[in-house]
């Protein structure tokens, strides 16, 4: 086949570049609707720090607790909040270890659903359960992530809401879980 004259100037490249600029213009986004949250867990055996971070809605606030856990509460719906805690994995596995804690902490604890997940390539479990709090029917969704540290740490992130308000913010909780990023770095 005879080789015809080939141009060094490519209009296709120009069209591609224009589309990238258009995409950039259309999708410029600020994270004005969310706030970042992160905490680190030091693994003294492997001399590594595991940092867990995620985003949560701006109309939620960090709330004080008297325990070694963090609490993010909704400003819109009373008694609706997310609790972030660290637990130690036992021989009973992710779900088994937490089931004992849940049964101890929640009145009329009833497990509704359970599902295995992978978060940042780590093993995780999602548990749905109901309980009562001072006579109010509550519902919760709990995500447990095995951090694979030598100290067998797992993080427990739980969304609590009165049964009637549960559906209002479960979507935001799903997004919060989706935004989780777990990274490890060497301790100095």
């Amino acid at each position, binding site marked *: *086949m005879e*080789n*015809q*004259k*080939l*141009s060094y100037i*490519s*209009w*296709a*490249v120009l*069209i*591609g*570049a224009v*589309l*990238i600029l*258009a*995409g*950039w213009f*259309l*999708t*410029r*986004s600020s*994270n004005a*609707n*969310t706030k970042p949250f992160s905490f680190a867990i030091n693994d003294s055996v492997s001399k*590594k720090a595991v940092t867990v971070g995620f*985003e949560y*809605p701006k109309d939620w606030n960090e709330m004080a607790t008297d325990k070694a856990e963090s609490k993010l509460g909704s400003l819109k719906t009373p008694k609706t909040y997310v609790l972030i805690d660290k637990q130690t994995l036992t021989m009973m596995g992710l779900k088994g270890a937490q089931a004992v804690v849940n049964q101890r902490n929640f009145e009329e604890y009833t497990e509704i659903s359970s*599902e295995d*997940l*992978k*978060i940042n*390539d780590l*093993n995780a479990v*999602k548990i749905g359960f109901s309980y009562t709090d001072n006579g109010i029917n509550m519902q919760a969704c709990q995500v447990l992530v095995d951090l*694979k540290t030598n100290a067998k740490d797992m993080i427990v992130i739980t969304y609590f809401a009165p049964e009637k308000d549960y559906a209002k913010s479960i979507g*935001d909780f*799903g*997004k919060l*879980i*989706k*935004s989780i990023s777990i990274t*490890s770095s060497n301790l100095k």
Partner: protein
Amino acid sequence: MLTVFVFLNRLFIFALISKHKNQKTMKFLTNKGFLGIVLLIIIGAVCSWLLDGTLLSLSGVWRLLFAIGVTLLPGLLWLWFFYMEDKYEKEPKQMLLGVFALGGLTAYALSKPITALFVPEVSVFDQNLLSQFLVAFLLVGMIQQLVIFLTVRYSIYFSNEFNEPADGVIYSIAAGLGFAAVYNFEYLVQMDAMNLGIVITRIINFYLVMAIFSGIMGYFIGFAKFSKAKNCGREMFMAIGLILAAFLNGLYWTVLTNVQGMNFSILKELAISAGSVIVIYLIMYFLLNRSVEASPFKNPENKPQ
């Protein structure tokens, strides 16, 4: 293992063909590019099934060697399958490997910095389906495909070795595989501990989709180079290929992200990529077959000495 696989595949296909007597189906199922896809999908499925949950923690030079081995092997294997498929005038191996390496270099030198510059850290809270698709198509997909396009358009495109329409597909796949190799390598070396089942399947998935999107674009590059249209017409044809590849790239990642959601499963991810790749390959096969049949070297007298 490869010989056993090819033998079993042929056996299966002959059984199928004797039933249906369909020549076209046989031709498609026995072509080496398709065999390469099936082999990679099988490796991915076996790894995700047997190795899911197997943690590997490597450091220093061992991690580097593991990353090089695991990232290069599937890419070069598939490149070899496509090389075998180019039946009338095979491309020089050093040219294919050169374009593969160039694809890797441009991925590192162009795609990564441009992506970091333009792709916003879109919060999952702000993302609706349309904005997810726009980011995946116009930004990530377009940047990746444009870089692969530049690799082919400003290197091998002007070479005398690019002498038939099918070469567009072969060289674009080589560039796409080189590109995927660098992304896969970076994915592997940054991990302290890896779940082997997930990691190997993800590497294979990325190779499969990048090669197939680049192959579609390559068909348009090859067709444009040997068309009788003026330069402007050729460029338009190449632009269509580029946009189509970026569109498929964006569509694939949007579907994958939304089907997976919170209920992650590596087998589901593999099934989605395998399904997409086989459908796109089927289309590309017929396009490629047209290109190969249009080869000036189909007639042995025209073969270069």
